[in-house]
């Protein structure tokens, strides 16, 4: 079945009910989300927002209480819907009796990769994630970063068209993160849809094109990273401006910061910054920098979850 969406959920709900106490937790509360084919999508949210439950609902590891989830147009409850998915869980625990190769062989076989293809694919995967030469070593001897890369390799074993990664950079050092990003870029170039669940906002901002922010089981904000972080103002830096001029500009600026003789004004609009530039140039002041302001994803995130 062809669908333009890799992931499509409609009013997806998961309620956990306590067996003994009259208490229920709405971990996922009516989430309707669409992730287009080929998208690089980030799911953000504070701890306990319902991100992992949402991801597990897509994989049928958790049974939704209501709503529906489709993977490439197929009901996520159907095991066949999971065939195009490569999944890296959060806090995975690979059995330590496996060697790297053995582990990849096992999970690739479960994903339906035949024996001949696995023999060829496993060395390729180990090389791709930078673990060449580690295939015969037991998983118990791997560092956290290596385990994460091995986990990524198992997710890629059957060349999935949808990668669902739960905290892929968790516990990985900056070099390892860079490596993971490179691998994911490679997957993106091959047309895979990448869905990342993470609390590492900088990582998501750097890599994802679209995000959704979850809070208390609900989507509170969704959009492209570019649109969400686009600012509405300008930052103007002036070295050693005259005091009188600073006072004049202060009335037009939203904020003024001074450090080491450099005064930085933030103006809310193009008109106000142009007026400021005219004033400064009339006084023959030098301008160090003039840049449009942007929000970081962290600022957007904090605003969204603190509403």
């Amino acid at each position, binding site marked *: 079945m062809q669908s333009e969406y890799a992931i499509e959920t409609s009013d997806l709900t998961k309620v*956990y009910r306590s067996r003994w106490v009259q208490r229920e937790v709405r971990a996922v509360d009516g989430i309707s989300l669409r992730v287009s084919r080929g998208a690089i999508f980030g799911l953000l949210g504070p701890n306990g927002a319902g991100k992992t439950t949402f991801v*597990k609902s897509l*994989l*049928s*590891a*958790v*049974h939704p209480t209501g709503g529906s989830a489709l993977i490439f147009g197929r009901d996520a409850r159907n*095991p*066949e*819907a*999971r*065939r195009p*998915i490569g*999944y890296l*869980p959060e*806090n*995975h*625990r*690979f*059995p*330590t*009796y*496996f060697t790297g190769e*053995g582990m990849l*062989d*096992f*999970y690739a*076989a*479960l*994903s*339906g*990769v*035949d*024996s001949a293809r696995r023999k060829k694919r496993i060395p390729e995967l180990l090389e791709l994630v930078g673990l060449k030469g580690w295939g015969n070593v037991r998983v118990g001897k791997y560092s956290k970063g290596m385990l994460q890369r091995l986990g990524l390799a*198992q997710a890629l074993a059957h060349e999935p068209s949808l990668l669902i990664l739960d905290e892929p950079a968790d516990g990985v050092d900056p070099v390892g993160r860079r490596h993971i990003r490179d691998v994911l870029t490679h997957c993106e170039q091959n047309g895979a849809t990448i869905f990342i669940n993470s609390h590492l906002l900088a990582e998501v901002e750097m890599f994802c094109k679209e995000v959704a922010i979850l809070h208390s089981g609900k989507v509170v904000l969704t959009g492209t990273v570019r649109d969400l972080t686009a600012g509405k103002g300008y930052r103007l830096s002036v070295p050693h401006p005259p005091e009188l001029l600073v006072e004049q500009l202060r009335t037009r600026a939203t904020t003024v910061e001074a450090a080491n003789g450099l005064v930085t004004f933030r103006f809310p609009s193009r008109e106000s910054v142009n007026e400021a530039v005219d004033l400064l140039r009339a006084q023959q002041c030098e301008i160090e920098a003039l840049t449009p302001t942007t929000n970081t994803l962290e600022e957007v995130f904090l605003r969204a979850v603190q509403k």
Partner: protein
Amino acid sequence: MTATLALIRDTFREAFARKIFWGLFGLSTAMILFFLFLLKIDIVEGATATVSLFGRTNNRAADLDRLVRGVYGSIATFLYTFGMFLAVFASSGLIPSVLEPGRIELLVSKPVSRTHILLGRYAGNVLVVTCNVIYLVLGVWTILGIKTGIWSPAFLISIATTSFIFAVLLSVVVLMGVLFESAALATMVTVALMLMSPILAQTSTMMRLLSSEWSRQTWRTLYYTLPKVYDLGKMTLDAIQSRTFNGFMPIWTSALFGAAVLAGALAIFARRDF
């Protein structure tokens, strides 16, 4: 098929890593070596002239066939009691280990149904024990065959019956594992069922001793419902000793029990959130 084989192979790999396979294999080997080196039989015209065990010689002219059948019976009894206990103890951790957080999520995210996952694990577990039973029974059978010249195929039945009753008991381990994720509890419940079996098997005696119809009915229900480890062991012994036995009821009622318990475990496993 690829996924099924992978699940079975994984169970073997874990059994090797946990030394379960080697433990059972070592025990079987010790028994085989025991018969190979310590049991010396001198035969004169088809009958034993002397039987030597632990270096002590018994000069009674015993019937060789009876002796061999006796040895077979002892091994079958060993398999049904001590061997079964060991197999249950050894296997009890193999189901809860799959359900560990961080491992199960990845398994169920694969394009394989949960029924398939659990049955693959179950089949792998049965095969681990069956391989050891085959090794032990065939080993002893071959050694005794070579030493005595008697090749009684009846003993080979114990491969099927031992593996069968283990498969039935393993369904209880699986159910307990899926319900409580506790190897200890799975072992306790399964061993309790094994211990109850010889007691429940005394049905005719109990029918005379129990005073009320209600208690007699309860006893009968328990007897017919629960797996008949004792009865199956006795059936195997009877088959080995060429004695007749009364019907196949212990086989099909135990099979029904195992199937029902396994179906329950599969249903619970399919509905669980991980």
